[in-house]
């Protein structure tokens, strides 16, 4: 006799306590004052953001803190129009890589302030190379989402 396989529903939800380490902790403390901080590597001279305790390329400690701008250019972007578990907001929305002035590493974040009424025409409204500025939340708690999104300027 052919037996149809039975499907059993399950769920795993596990709590975690993630240590940020002192460098990331300070990086987000500075967010409360609307400051984006990086660390400069003495060896390759790159300004790494978010601030790191060691260089990803040179494998040396980076302790020289520098402030970078909260304005920059869009390196690339994508319109997200699908759903998944744990998603930060309801689609559609735009994320991008922002090259902040003064930083040598891009920052992934949301690009907002763009009308999303017609998805087919969105490419005419967001532009690679376009200038953007951080829109900070009123209440900042030291989190990547203290920046609401990056807004196209001029």
């Amino acid at each position, binding site marked *: 006799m052919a037996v149809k*396989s039975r499907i059993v529903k399950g769920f795993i939800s596990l709590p975690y306590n993630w240590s940020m380490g002192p460098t990331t902790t300070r990086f987000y403390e500075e967010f409360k004052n609307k400051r984006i901080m990086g660390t400069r590597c003495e060896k390759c001279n790159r300004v790494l953001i978010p601030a790191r305790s060691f260089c*990803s390329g040179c494998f040396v400690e980076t302790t020289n803190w520098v402030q970078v701008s909260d304005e920059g250019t869009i390196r*690339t972007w994508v319109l*997200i129009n*699908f759903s998944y578990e*744990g998603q930060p907001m309801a689609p559609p929305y735009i994320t991008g890589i922002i090259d902040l002035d003064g930083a040598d590493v891009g920052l992934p974040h949301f690009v907002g302030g763009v009308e999303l009424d017609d998805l087919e025409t969105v490419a005419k409204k967001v532009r690679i190379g376009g200038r953007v500025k951080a829109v900070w939340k009123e209440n900042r708690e030291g989190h990547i989402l203290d920046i609401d999104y990056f807004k196209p300027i001029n």
Partner: protein
Amino acid sequence: MAQAVAIVGTGQTECGRRTDVSYPELVYEAVSRAFDDAGLVPDDIEAVVAGSMPPAMEGVNNPHLYWADAMGAGGKPLIRTATCGSTGISLAHTGFYHVASGMFDLVLVVGAEKMYEGDPQGTMATVADPFFQRPFLAGAPGIFSLQSNEWAHRYGIEEKRVRMAAAQLSVRNHDDALLNPYAHIRIKITVDDVLNSRIIAYPVRLLDVCPASDGACAVIMASERMAKKLGRPTAWIKGVGYCGEQAFFSEGDKVVWQSAINAAKSAYSQAGITNPRKDLDLAEVYNPFTFQEMLFYECFGFCDFGHGCDLVEQGVVMRGGDLPCDPSGGTLCTNPIGATGLQRVSEVVLHVTEKAGDRQIPGAKTGLAHAMGGLDQFNGIMIISSVL
């Protein structure tokens, strides 16, 4: 000096929504077929290599323990290799290292995934670190679309042109999948169907994106001595290349993509390939997204940078073309991720041993198998040939 390594057997399952079997039963199906193909039994195997996506995919942490019996792994060394999308090619490389080292004469390599049992995009979103990148790197479609947009912009490829080339690739993959009995998505589609399908992650549309699949794949590797003793149809691993990048997605250049370029370069140099367009008879390029496949052509030296679309427009990468790519229907039509890279390897093996059935590229002697993984962080390549 590494010893020569042969592939003497492959086994693939039918892919799709495989609720008819449990996870180990799915693995058993692929492994049994590999043993049948090689004319071997589990007792012949000396070591086992297995892998899959991050275990949150199926909700069984360290699934290779759960699969052990399905691989006949009792009483043998068993090692897990997992690098996200590139898991399958990493598995193949790990198996290669086992045999090339001279430690083992026969090694079983297994990759599997049951993506319908969990939340694939939710799982992949948790691959990103929890402090910085996680909210923004929206699973695979998000990452690959960021890359595709940057690529098209870098070379000033008109939106209309790149979308058309992507659509032609989608049609090619879907046509070829109809010839592959193991493929998941088996539908006849047109260029207009692709162009008019729903935007998933601009510029990527529904028919530019791979499915989530259940499926498994197994490969048996042998030393030269053992392969000659077995005296069966044999494919030879001529070169392997693998390269990783920094952890932060936005740190490196994803257009002139060093990990892909370096992986190809080292595999080519080992295999003595100087002109991939001429020296390769086929390539199984990991193509979960149509747009990204064209970027790989450039990184693998199939054409100059910025000219990926040309190869589609000129038919070079189509069945019957100069360098047919993904004659299996590719990852675009079948993607049980932990098995996918190993399927690329298996498919090339089938072609060079003239066992590819309806999808056979006539006279194929040498092929390239590839997979990409991490958060756009890893690329791996294997060159496989009919001659030692």
